[in-house]
């Protein structure tokens, strides 16, 4: 049988509860969970009107634990079913990276989550690849990247998208550390993602529709702060934020740069060059584009290398790899999106 050429760039493995992290926490932090009832803040008010709310209804393990927390079920429903060559674990523990203050505890939680991911997931299946979870505070983040980067299955550093822009020079040590280790960066929305230019929208449908706006903020921040000039070759993927807006922003930023480049002279190239060379975007949530619509976007990007497949398992808006891309697109483009672009991004040999 022909080997299936598929890589999934967004799989949300989960802890069953905070207790899963306790074995990996230093003593002074364990007690906050075991004795003093600490739980992460829950910043968004929404639930969906459906069983399992944010999860696919068929992904809860038989023992009732959290969807995404069972390796066996994830293996059956995803890795084996679709014969993925690799799947990238993006987790769902972004609160340690985006919370405000108490960074020592956040750093301990991030480390514990990384150790949990290695022992319970990466060590069990060579197809699984990991994302290094970091605290937001740059010095601690660099220590964590240095600690985890040599693990052969840790293939990227996760910077969750919240209400601040990662391109700010304050965060550049994080990019420097990733770059030094040859690791790409992934950015994924966290529960604290916000809109610029408006107050908090009332409804989940509004909040979800607005996610791309926060991704736009990140891309503009990275480029105008010279991240890609300072760290040439650095690759950043923007996961679960859509891609249809990308050609719009490439053209809009190019047009602004022609007139306004003297304000950011450290940005040496046209912004669309950085989009094409340094940034990648994922397919999920697929917005039901037909082949003609999709090909017009590829045409406006002037690149077949910028989009990578993602499933978002076990979340409710999961995209099946066999039923995501329209059937009438060129096979060479399909293979790039389903496989080769991710392979290059993750530097898989």
């Amino acid at each position, binding site marked *: 049988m022909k080997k299936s050429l598929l890589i999934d760039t967004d799989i949300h493995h989960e802890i069953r509860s905070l207790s899963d992290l306790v074995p990996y926490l230093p003593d002074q932090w364990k007690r906050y969970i075991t004795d003093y009832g600490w739980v992460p803040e829950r910043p968004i008010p929404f639930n969906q009107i459906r069983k399992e709310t944010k999860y696919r*209804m068929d992904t809860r393990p038989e023992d009732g634990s959290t969807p995404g927390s069972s390796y066996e079920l994830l293996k059956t429903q995803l890795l084996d079913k679709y014969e993925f060559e690799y799947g990238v674990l993006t987790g769902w523990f972004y609160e340690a990276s985006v919370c405000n203050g108490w960074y020592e505890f956040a750093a301990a939680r991030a480390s514990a989550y990384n150790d949990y991911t290695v022992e319970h997931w990466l060590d069990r299946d060579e197809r699984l690849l990991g994302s290094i979870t970091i605290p937001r505070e740059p010095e601690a983040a660099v220590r964590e990247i240095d600690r985890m980067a040599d693990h052969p299955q840790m293939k990227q550093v996760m910077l969750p998208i919240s209400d601040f822009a990662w391109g700010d020079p304050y965060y550049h040590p994080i990019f420097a550390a990733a770059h030094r280790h040859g690791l790409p960066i992934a950015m994924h929305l966290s529960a604290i993602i916000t809109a610029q230019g408006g107050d908090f929208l009332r409804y989940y449908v509004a909040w979800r529709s607005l996610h791309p706006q926060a991704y736009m903020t990140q891309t503009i921040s990275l480029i105008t702060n010279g991240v890609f000039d300072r760290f040439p070759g650095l690759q950043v993927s923007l996961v679960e934020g859509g891609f249809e807006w990308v050609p719009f922003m490439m053209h809009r930023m190019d047009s602004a740069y022609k007139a306004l480049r003297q304000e950011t002279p450290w940005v040496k190239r046209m912004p669309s060059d950085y989009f094409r060379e340094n940034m990648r975007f994922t397919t999920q949530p697929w917005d039901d584009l037909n082949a003609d619509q999709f090909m017009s976007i590829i045409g406006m990007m002037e690149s077949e290398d910028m989009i990578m497949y993602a499933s978002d398992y076990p979340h409710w808006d999961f995209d099946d790899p066999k*039923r995501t891309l329209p059937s009438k697109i060129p096979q060479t483009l399909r293979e790039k999106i389903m496989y080769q672009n991710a392979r290059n991004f993750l530097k898989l040999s």
Partner: protein
Amino acid sequence: MDELGKVRKKALVINKRPVVVVYSEQGSLHALRDVCPHKGPCLSDGMLDKNCAGAMSGEYIFDRETEVLRCPWHSWEFDIRTGKSLFSPDKIRVRTYPVTVEEGDVFVEL
């Protein structure tokens, strides 16, 4: 019928065709193709619910006449009587089949 009264929906394969039989709260029986036309999961893994209606901001009215089968993945809703989606009834629908009951047994006509 006794079993359906308890479980409300049941997945069957009849002549290799997947079918979900639904027993509505109104007491009627319906059969639909057990495949979501969007991405293909079994609708029987989803949930039964009422249509939620409302004419003004902040108004939520459960429409007890319209029961829906909600897909386990992307939450698309289909009217169990007609198979029509609620968001685009003329374009997106699931096939339905006639159902009859004889002496407590349920028959689906494909």
